[in-house]
């Protein structure tokens, strides 16, 4: 049976301006989904995106290439990642005046 794990990496936090999730180690997994559930949103709702980043050491990051749209509240959206090595995070920058209260899930599978 394949190993799997869901990590809640942000819970009920407000994002505004630049944001990045805490580094999460996932070297054992071969596929991942980031889910962003928006509980509350304020301000303009256009242009809200996040991008996946990867890292060899959990400290220095580069874009993996995957991007996702961040939904206005109430909403849920996701993106898929494969072949990511050891560390994953989600980062981005919301437009001025926009903010989101989110729960972020990282769903991993071996």
């Amino acid at each position, binding site marked *: 049976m394949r190993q799997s794990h869901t990590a809640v*990496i942000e819970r009920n936090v407000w994002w505004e301006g630049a944001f990045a999730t805490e580094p999460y180690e996932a070297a054992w997994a071969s596929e991942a989904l980031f889910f962003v559930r928006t509980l509350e949103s304020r301000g303009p709702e256009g242009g809200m995106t996040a991008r996946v980043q990867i890292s060899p050491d959990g*400290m220095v990051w580069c874009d993996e290439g995957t991007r996702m749209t961040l939904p206005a509240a109430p909403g849920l959206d996701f993106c898929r990642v494969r072949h990511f090595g050891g560390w994953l995070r989600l980062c981005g920058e919301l437009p001025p005046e926009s903010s989101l209260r989110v729960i972020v899930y990282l769903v991993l599978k071996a």
Partner: protein
Amino acid sequence: MQRAPELLSPALSRFDPLPRILFFADFDGGLNGYTALIGNYEGSLDSLLPEYRDLRPPMLSNLSMWDTGSAGGLDGTYALKLATRPQAGSLAVAVKRLTWRRPGRIQFEAYFTFKPEATELQLSNTDVRAVGFGLDLQDGDRRTGARRVMPHLRYLNALGGQMVERWQFKRAPEPMHEIGTTGKTRSHFHLAPTGWEDVPDGHQQLCYNEIATKQNWHYVRFGFDLDAMAFTAFQCNDRTFDPSGIAPMMLGAMPNLWCMLNPFMWVETDLDKRAFLYVDSVLLSAE
């Protein structure tokens, strides 16, 4: 020493368990039921006590370092990892939840190591504030004067940038708060920085090993009597400590926690840098 045949495997023979193994969590096989800790809430997550809102969750790590690559676990590739946020006082906690069958002696054993994030090319040995191990227990529902009992042991590595290197315990309860409006939910933040007491003769210098990217595994063991609700043993590496000098936190029994047996472990950072606790394996045994 004569050992039971089932304890002769390489994975188990490094432990000294009581006769009945309740669980053996080797994190090469996943998180084994260890999960994130959250406080109690009612109606909204905003009702959480502030200290419970962002306890960071466990993950599986192969201990990859920027300068030397993967160190792996004590055996195998993976260990449970707890990582704080890079904010002084941030905590990461892992808990596993089960119940007990017989109010006798139990014993917790683990192999662990801790380090700060290697963001500086410095010794960094005062960056991790503390790592700790505890149990959240409650008597059975038929017991007169039933208790909720929380043995806590932490290794206070450093505080305010100064080395401390001392084992501590906590028996002073934290204030209990009503959560929500139904009168059914309460919460107390038992990992608060207040109320810690020194374990007698509990100063112990552990192998830090010079830079932030070298990990040496340590052994910890403590025994607890579920009837007397008292420590029966405490050991870390080559040192054993007198269990009569340490005591658990005691509270009145709570409405829906009967026979609870929750081992938990945590790490706290002393400055605005991530602190990591790695646990290779945990074994909980009973008489």
